[in-house]
């Protein structure tokens, strides 16, 4: 009886459905904009897909672009699950990037790659973790809100990079950026490059895939994830249950920072091979949107990042059609708006499901009446319910 109750209820909108609806509405909005400037939206979207996916090189570039978005998205989502808002992904990314770049510059070229790459990745991750940890520490010990501290740390990182590039790794020919890292010292791999027509795809993408699985594992399977989520959903209850709230906050921010630090490594030592002075990476903020659209679930974040990667890579091809490339950014912005107002979308679907369910229920009642069935509808199994609702539909007509 109790089991039946569960199945014989109107469906509820899943986060996946809500996200897909947001994407759909974003595309509709983009189409309207394209129509407004007198162009064909189908041509526009075809161009975007063409630009992002039409060749192995383009696919490689799209995935190369998505790599950072996956890692930053995971960083924001991880902090969010613990009830923290990590706006400092950009700064953490910069710290990871500058650390990685210095390591790449100073480690001897003849070092074997199996040794060199882990050192690069781990030091960059640690630098990001330190940056995230500072915010967590300030929050745990002095109750400084993480939004404030992460934003301030973004600028501290920005100026550190501004200082460190000329101090340690300057390119003497162009004195506003770092000396390009030799190919063997980046995350790029010869076989990936030849496979994808010398695209930006690098080992960082595999790192992103691995981290997606790792974050999923931590959050769903481990006691660490359990306590972090407990603090995130109700810190008073966590405190009562004996979970140390302050250390959870510090751990969570450090892990989030580490993920952004890794994004710094993949971005500055893989996707690109230089760092520019005076540039705050946009990816830190795109990552918030990625986490939002992915409903903060690791797998959701992964696909949301690839989706944004497609739009970002594909927009370049729009120019040929006379459609401004800003259309792609508009679509991203609209998708974010619709994701942020997910309650409206969820309500829309829930209302639909409820209506269709009560129609079915009516049909079932009619069918049962016609059959002389005297049971209460609650006693029916799901199959019976489905069968009777089909029978009843004719009855109602």
């Amino acid at each position: 009886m109790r089991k039946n109750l569960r199945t014989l209820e109107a469906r509820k909108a899943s986060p996946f459905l809500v996200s897909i609806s947001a994407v759909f509405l974003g595309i509709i909005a983009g189409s309207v904009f394209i129509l407004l400037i007198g162009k064909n939206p189908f041509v526009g979207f075809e161009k975007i897909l063409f630009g992002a996916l039409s060749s192995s090189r383009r696919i490689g570039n799209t995935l190369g672009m998505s790599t950072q978005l996956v890692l930053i998205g995971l960083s924001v989502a991880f902090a969010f699950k613990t009830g923290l808002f990590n706006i400092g992904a950009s700064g953490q990314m910069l710290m990871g990037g500058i650390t990685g770049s210095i390591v790449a510059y100073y480690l001897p070229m003849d070092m074997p790659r199996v040794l060199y790459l882990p050192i690069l990745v781990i030091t960059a991750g640690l630098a990001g973790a330190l940056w995230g940890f500072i915010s967590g520490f300030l929050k745990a010990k002095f109750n400084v809100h993480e939004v404030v501290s992460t934003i301030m740390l973004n600028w501290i990182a920005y100026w550190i990079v501004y200082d460190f590039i000329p101090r340690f790794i300057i390119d003497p020919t162009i004195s506003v950026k770092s000396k390009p890292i030799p190919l063997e010292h980046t995350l790029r791999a010869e076989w990936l490059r030849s496979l994808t027509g010398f695209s930006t795809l690098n080992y960082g993408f595999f790192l992103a895939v691995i981290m997606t699985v790792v974050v999923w594992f931590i959050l769903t399977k481990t006691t660490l994830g359990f306590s972090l989520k407990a603090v995130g959903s109700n810190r008073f209850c966590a405190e009562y249950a004996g979970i140390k709230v302050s250390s959870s906050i510090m751990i969570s921010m450090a892990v989030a920072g580490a993920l952004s630090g890794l994004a710094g490594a993949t971005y500055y030592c893989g996707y690109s091979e230089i760092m520019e002075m005076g540039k705050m990476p946009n990816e830190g903020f795109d990552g918030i949107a990625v986490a939002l659209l992915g409903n903060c679930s690791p797998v959701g974040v992964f696909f949301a990042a690839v989706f944004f990667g497609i739009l970002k890579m594909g927009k370049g091809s729009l120019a040929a059609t006379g459609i401004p490339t800003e259309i792609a950014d508009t679509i991203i912005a609209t998708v974010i708006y619709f994701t942020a107002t997910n309650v409206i979308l969820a309500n829309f679907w829930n209302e639909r499901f409820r209506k269709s369910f009560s129609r079915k229920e009516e049909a079932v009642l009619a069918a049962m009446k016609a059959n002389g069935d005297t049971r209460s509808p609650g006693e029916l199994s799901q199959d019976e319910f489905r069968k009777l609702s089909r029978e009843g539909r004719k009855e109602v007509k």
Partner: protein
Amino acid sequence: MAAFISQELYLSYVIEMVGIRKEFPGIVANDDITLQVREGEIHAILGENGAGKSTLMSILFGLYHADRGVIKVRGKEVHIKSPNDAFSLGIGMVHQHFQLVHNFTVAENIILGKEGGFVYDVRKASEKIREISERYGLSIEPDMNIEDITVGMQQRVEILKMLYRDADILIFDEPTAVLTPQEIEELMDIMRNLAAEGKSIILITHKLDEIKAVADRCTIIRRGKLVGVVDVASTTASDMAAMMVGRPVSFHTEKAPSVPGEKILEIRNLSVMNSRHVPGVKDFSLTVHGGEIVGIAGVDGNGQSELIEAITGLRPVASGTILFRGTDMTSMSVRKRNELGLGHIPEDRQKRGLILGAALTSNMVIKEFYKEGFSHHGILDYPAIRDYTDAIISEFDVRSGEGADSLAGKLSGGNQQKAIIGREITSDPELLIAVQPTRGLDVGAIEFIHRQLVQERDKGKAVLLVSFELDEIFNLSDRIAVISGGRLIDIVNTDETDSHAVGLMMAGIKAEGRSV
């Protein structure tokens, strides 16, 4: 002539809900319920949690629509489609959770939505508020901010909001759940005043003493069905309770004399600061032995919360020591205390006791998930956690839609509390601290919880009970410690005292010739 008119008025029903039926998937929430409220009476609706009281009132207030049945207001059939329709018919509702803007003044809250035009006149409104306040004895100061006034006064603001909108049928939804004993008294007086002024009142509650105190008639519903309508003056509380639950109910928990064992908890000269950094508990000493229930009696806000938080490790101690079976745990972490054998049924079950957005499985192991048995080397053992949860659910009769997978927030208050108590008792603590364990629960659940606490005592465990309801203290405790202004006034044996003496001590007046 006058007599004739009053008779006429008396016989007319101000509200009539006839044959109301409301079905939700799988449940008939209201099955052919009829409610008739006379003008100027206080009409109670009594029923356990989930009996259908709230559904019935939501239908009257336009939040739900009945599948069948007729609603008549002042003899005229009406269709109430929304709360606005209800307002215009003069029906107002005082919700259990107040709907007030905290940094607005009382007057601003009251005229909110009724400003009348672009520019509003707070002064004029304040005058009208003062006038209404005086007329019904609400003693409300219109210029105070909501955040600066007590919970009892906030509720009176809610009442005044309804009166300001000229409501003459007032629905009170569990109004005393958040009030102290004095505030309850005041509210009862206000309700009597309102009725005397000709307002009709519907009181939704499951507290029988309140019904006995103010109501004229009482409609009793059980599992969505009307059980009966009784005249309150001529019906005993236990008869009403039996009608509500469907079987005779004992208000008195049967228990054998206590057999105190070893000292479990020993508090020595404890002082604790409260949130405003002034001493909330002052030089407090108390010992609790195994096999006894010690009740802490006191009016809400006299240091109980600070005392319990200090014992459980949620609040630092200013001075003094707390010993647990001789071990000093004054500055131990919460987890260490739990591991020593401390169980805690917290005062606020939704804020502290549960993660409402998480499944019961997570909630049942929230204190012990890291222990071997629920996890191995940091990896959670879900099958073990589920078995454990299922065991608690069946042993403590926790009812939920989806069993162990149900979100804690989807459970009724009584079932949430049963789940917490199940969790705390199953972990087999030496000392069980229960703070307001039956707050807001119905008779059946209260009975169950009281039995559980006595059972723990009989197993030789120490039980420390904090309650603002003197009946509960007297019913369960072997000894009563009275706290007032953060100080221990006295400790007395339950069978050597009475509620009058304890009531005086709660006000800070110590009985003659006793020592602390």
